[in-house]
């Protein structure tokens, strides 16, 4: 009896989290899977025909978009890390009394809607806008130069939009590091660079992992940035753009659901490979 109860306790503890997952993840995913296996048109209605053939069909047609989305998201993650790490480090170690004010500045953009911020960047970065227009007038830039609707511009937009998601977990991880460990490393003949890589950076890895996931996952599925800063250029479309079009414009629900299902499954696969590679035992410290 007692051993039975002891065996049950961990399961009971899993209930709230597990329940959340079932209601908000497993059930919607199952619905999406079922929708993807239907056939028909919006006007005549959709029937579940277990049409698994939709998967090879959409993958065959749109694999390039998956590759592009993934590479944009990887580039975004690396850029946010490169920009966010020095910011988080500086706030955590040299922020002093300004720490909270600086952190507020980091999240301040969230006070304005994502779409509006992205639209503003489109204006700022347009061919004859504030930045490039001025540079062109000054003769510093070729008149034909344009930035909007290039892959670089989309990656720039994504990096801007998800930077706080990188900075915050990094800040938390770096702030926790005992400064005496860095002193101890320099005491043991590590140069400042070695002390950084061997102690500070390794100890901040949980923040790096959390920040990467928090930027990679939303960027890979993002469609607003490519839509707005990409200025509707199909050459820079990401998977999200196609899914959105299929759901809302062509009302092709099965194909849209299949594309989305592949995206979620792919992200889950990548994330599990990534966390395994970085080593979750490292994260446990």
């Amino acid at each position, binding site marked *: 009896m007692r051993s039975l109860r002891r065996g049950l306790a961990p399961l009971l503890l899993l209930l709230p989290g597990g329940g959340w997952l079932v209601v908000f993840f497993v059930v919607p995913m199952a619905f999406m899977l079922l929708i993807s296996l239907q056939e028909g048109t919006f006007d005549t209605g959709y029937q579940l025909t277990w049409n698994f053939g939709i998967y090879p069909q959409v993958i065959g047609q749109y694999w390039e978009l998956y590759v592009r989305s993934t590479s944009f998201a990887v580039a975004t993650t690396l850029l946010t890390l490169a920009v966010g790490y020095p910011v988080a480090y500086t706030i955590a170690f040299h922020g002093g009394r300004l720490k909270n004010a600086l952190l507020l500045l980091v999240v301040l953009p969230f006070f304005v809607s994502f779409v509006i911020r992205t639209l503003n960047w489109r204006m700022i970065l347009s061919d004859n806008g504030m930045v490039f227009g001025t540079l062109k007038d000054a003769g510093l830039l070729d008149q034909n130069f344009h930035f909007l609707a290039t892959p670089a511009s989309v990656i720039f937009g994504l990096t801007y939009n998800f930077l706080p998601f990188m900075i915050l977990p990094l800040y938390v991880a770096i702030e926790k590091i*005992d400064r*005496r*460990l860095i*002193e*101890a*490393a*320099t*005491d*043991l*003949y*590590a*140069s*400042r660079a*070695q002390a950084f890589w*061997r*102690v500070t950076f*390794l*100890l901040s890895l949980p923040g790096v992992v959390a920040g990467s996931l928090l930027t990679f996952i939303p960027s890979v599925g993002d469609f607003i940035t490519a839509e707005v800063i990409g200025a509707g250029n199909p050459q820079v479309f990401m998977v999200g753009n196609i899914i959105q079009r299929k759901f809302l414009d062509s009302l092709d629900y099965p194909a849209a659901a299949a594309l989305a299902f592949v995206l979620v499954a792919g992200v889950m696969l990548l994330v599990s490979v990534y966390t395994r590679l970085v080593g979750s035992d*490292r994260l446990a*410290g």
Partner: protein
Amino acid sequence: MPSSIDVRLDRVTKRFHEVVAVDDLSVDVEQGEFFSMLGPSGCGKTTTLRMIGGFEETTAGTIYLGEADVTGLPPFKRDVNTVFQNYALFPHLSVRENVAFGLRRKKVDNAEIDRRVVAMLELVEMPGYESRKPSQLSGGQQQRVALARALINHPKVLLLDEPLGALDLKLRKQMQIELKRIQTEVGITFIYVTHDQEEAMTMSDRIAVMRAGRIEQLGSPEELYERPRTEFVAGFLGVSNLLGGSVVGRDDSFVSVRIADGTVLRAPAELVNGSATVRIGVRPEKLRVTPIVEGAGPTPADGGLNALDGTILDASYIGVSTQYLVKTRDGHRLTVYAQNLETGGAAEALADGHPVRLTWQPQHTFVISVTTLDDGRTPVQTEEGAP
């Protein structure tokens, strides 16, 4: 002689804004010495140590390691290692990698590192713990790993900042003995910071008693205890009985000092530097209590002992000894620790109000020159063979 000096601080000052943490401090630490810095909280011990380690810049003054001026060098360029107060072991590295950290930075080859790690863990009595993480060790074990991690580099000098501060009393005592053994074994100069006078006395060759960023007195534990030069040192290193008086006579070995109640006491002449008013002191265990028998008349002060009359104010039996509080005729209170050698126990202790005579050897008297007290700025050094 300069070649046997390992660390020299030459007029070192450290200011944090308005706070003067270390004030014009000069000291020489000799090669192979166990040197302690002892003092109350905030007197600048940690700051001094951090300047030697290179973690804190000096505001003024020069620091030498051996012959070399290291004042401006970063920690990784100094042949010094530190055992930090809370150990500062790398939580993400195993015991082996923690201990090997310094050697890896110095590019020692792997086989040599493995060999030395094993030997070092043996020295600190932690063999077989190589693959544990610091979080899987007890406080005492972490302490040993921290020591091994520093010692494996064979630094010229090892700096220790209250390394035993986090341990319980029993483990502390045991580690004090260990530390001393290891220091003797490796022969490295230890500079040890503590605010525990007993700990400093047990382990050190020499102690610098610090106060407000300065060295108040420097000497061997015995010198500091037997011959404190200031009231602060006398009080910091144990209980002391102090009496003010004026010098009334002098011969080759002793000066005579008349205290307030008229008694003339003798103190070693070399301790008095010519001033007319002095304070003399004596440690409680140096005093002998003899009951004065009514009507027997004053007993002559035999054998040249100092003698001072008073009455018992309080007696407390504490097992190995009995502690008396004695009031002198002019109202001073003196503490006496009487060994319970012959007496059978609490019942035989002298009763309150009993007239007694306190006697002690004149050479056990120490002298606090009044001038040093007022002007605490002059650090007093009592080196062996000093006048």
